[in-house]
């Protein structure tokens, strides 16, 4: 019963709210593009030709760049890389942040103060500059971009998790779980944190958009992903110099893809929360 009613609930959430329906549809398109991207496009995103800087035509929908590469193919193929960076960064910060915040909130006391101040220290830096510093110091790889993005997002998850755990740790069902012979770890990770999921879901979806921007931002300034890899941030960076001379398509299309992705993730939040909240099931 649990499974079918969960699907029924997803169906209800999606159909009752047109915004959620739109966000879910866009999300599905983005995910499909990420999976199928390379096989959808007509040109090799890395192949240079002599047709440089051509405006959009029927052959090249989004035009070509300064090396004659097809912008449409590059925008589509870049989806996978950008999505992978942001998803893994957000997952990493969600898992670590929620655990640290949960532990701080559940045990309280000096543990709470210590963890809290440590995470506050991260917040004390301008986050993008901190990410730049981490990538610059630890090496210019995609893996380090993911780790840097995860670190600067940690405090947000830890704070949400801590607040949710503090509210719930003295509730009757947590006491009842203790009486039923559950140890503190099982109660925290098996009982309390799953109940904190709905508000964290909102945080995740907002963060996904932010993580994509962050990854693109880092590659825009030349950190992390490097040319000639197809990536929205690099494409915007490379195209930026051509805006003045009127080659607008180099920037508009990858920038638009970036905007659409961020927009989708931000819209997704409420729907995800509703889906993960058992109270909203009937």
């Amino acid at each position, binding site marked *: *019963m*649990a499974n079918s009613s969960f699907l029924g609930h997803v169906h*209800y959430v999606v159909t*009752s709210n047109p915004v959620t329906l739109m966000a879910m549809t866009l999300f599905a398109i983005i995910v499909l593009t990420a999976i199928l991207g390379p096989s959808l496009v007509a040109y090799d995103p890395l192949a240079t030709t002599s047709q440089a800087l051509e405006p959009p035509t029927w052959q090249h929908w989004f035009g070509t760049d300064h090396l004659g590469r097809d912008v449409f193919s590059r925008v589509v193929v870049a989806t996978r890389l950008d999505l992978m960076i942001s998803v893994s960064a957000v997952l990493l910060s969600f898992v670590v942040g929620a655990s640290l915040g949960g532990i701080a909130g559940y045990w309280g006391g000096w543990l709470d103060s210590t963890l809290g101040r440590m995470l506050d220290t991260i917040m004390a830096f301008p986050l993008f500059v901190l990410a730049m510093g981490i990538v610059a110091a630890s090496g210019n790889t995609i893996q380090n971009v993911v780790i840097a993005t995860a670190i600067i997002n940690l405090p947000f998850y830890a704070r949400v998790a801590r607040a949710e755990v503090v509210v719930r740790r003295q*509730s*009757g*069902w947590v*006491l*009842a*779980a*203790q*009486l*039923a*012979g*559950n*140890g*503190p770890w099982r109660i925290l990770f098996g*009982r309390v944190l*799953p*109940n904190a999921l709905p508000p964290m879901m909102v945080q995740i979806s907002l963060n996904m958009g932010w993580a994509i921007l962050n990854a693109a931002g880092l590659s825009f300034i030349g950190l992390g992903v490097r040319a000639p890899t197809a990536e929205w941030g690099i494409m915007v960076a490379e195209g930026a110099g051509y805006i003045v001379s009127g080659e607008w398509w180099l920037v508009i299309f990858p920038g638009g893809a970036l905007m659409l992705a961020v927009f989708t993730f931000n819209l997704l939040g409420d729907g995800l929360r509703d889906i993960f909240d*058992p*109270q909203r*099931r*009937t």
Partner: protein
Amino acid sequence: MTSFAPEAALNAFLTLEHLSVEFRTRHGIVSAVNDISLSLARGETLGIVGESGSGKSVTSYALLGLLDRAGRVTEGSAVYSGISLIPASESTMRDIRGREISMIFQNPRAALNPIRTVGKQIQDVLLQHAQCTRQTARRRAIEALENVRIRDPHQRVDAYPFELSGGMCQRVVIAMALACKPRILIADEPTTGLDVTTQRAVMALVCELTREHGMATILITHDLGLAGEYCDRVSIMQKGRIVESGSARQIFHRPSHAYTRKLVKATPHAAENVRDLLPDDEKSPLPPIGLDDVRPRRPLLEIQELRRHFAGKRSWTDVLACRPATVFEAVKGISLEIWPGESVGLVGESGCGKSTTSSMIMRLLDPTDGAIRFKGQDITLINRQAFVHHAMRRSLQMVFQDPTDSLNPRFSAADSIADPLRRLMGMSHRDTIAARVAQLADMVGLPQDLLTRLPHQLSGGQKARVGIARAIASEPDLLILDEPTAALDVSVQAIVLNLLVDLRARTGMAYLFVSHDLEVVRLLCDRVIVMRSGEIVEHGPTTQVLNQPSHPYTCELLAAAPRPPIEAHVEPEFSHD
């Protein structure tokens, strides 16, 4: 369908006719109030009594135009001394609300703005209705506080809500409601969540002020006893309809509707035993309590000089000045014992230390000092973390106060009941667990098909049953019941109390029944312990303590319980229609 006395209608200054209210929900339109007619005369107190979901609060919200967006008045009219309230424009209602008709809400703390002083909040109301100028506002606010018998109103006017007790907050809310001298006061469960003695003080105040100002009052409550004591007339609501109206005496002595009879019966004021709370056709003979004739050699639980202190906040200035933190003594060295199979009542008002005591017995909280001997072994010597996996854990279980709060929102009823089976009883096979869960559900009278439901899909009574089934799953020897029926409607309370009596007869568990409700304790317990400010003030057999109390505080508690207009131990004559 409801007919009110014609003379009442004549000098009525509030009449409500054929009111129907609907709510738009996920499952379509739900009718909350169905064709209700009421009238209120000057100086009269009208009680609207019903269980949760009967539509009693919705009626008052509709009257004041406070329905939320999903709600809609579909039919009916309301007239207050010539002014139409339904239908009415929002600007009319804004003038009426507060100045002509005021309302007191259920939770006084939630009704007050936590970051404004109470004086400022009273001034807001006065200024809003142009009852005073900025210069006189403060003086008028102090007067308003004086009116509701708050001591030191000059200081209290600058207090924030969190600095006041629950009873005090309710007085402030009443002061706000009465600040503009309204003609009608609607009190929606004004004393739910307050102690009995506070309840008595608040209700006495409301009645006194009603007389003083010549107001009319509508008291909305689930407590028939309360309505019976303080109201002139009572209307009983069930499922959005008024099923019966009449004088309070009439309702108690000659209830004509079956539902009223059920409610009157379920109100534990004159019942001889728990079975009297149930309707006649649902009664079964009371099982004999299987206490052995020979007393067991030693008590099941023995508490000696148990103490618990809570340290107050110590600011850094205190630390520098080497001032010790202020210490609050929640439990001040109490001793008690519980024998196997016995049912003991622990009675007291909020803050008396009864919950702290039960948490310590459950090993959810470490005592500051003293011994808790369970089956002869001092369990305070076992580390609290280690006790979770200790063999004793399964013998000590507890049913929590709020059935909703005590169930994990993500766990189905079966998951909740299976939890102690997995952890404490070492059951791991899916089928054995399912079989035992089904057996436990049977024991507490929970239908099997509800086992897959999540807590919010269950009613209050069903949630209470799940909580009880979980607590008895590990076959405990001592079960602490922390106000297990405080959050339930009276008819559900009657059923749950009977269930508890049956379970005890069947399993031979000992009960420690923590409660503030002496009438419930009378029905369930062999012995009573009365606590006040962390100390035991009186203890003894139930009949002795409740009939010949020796301590003045016990007398005060007994006197504070609402007395409906009914002679004790006289079977009400039911006119069968």
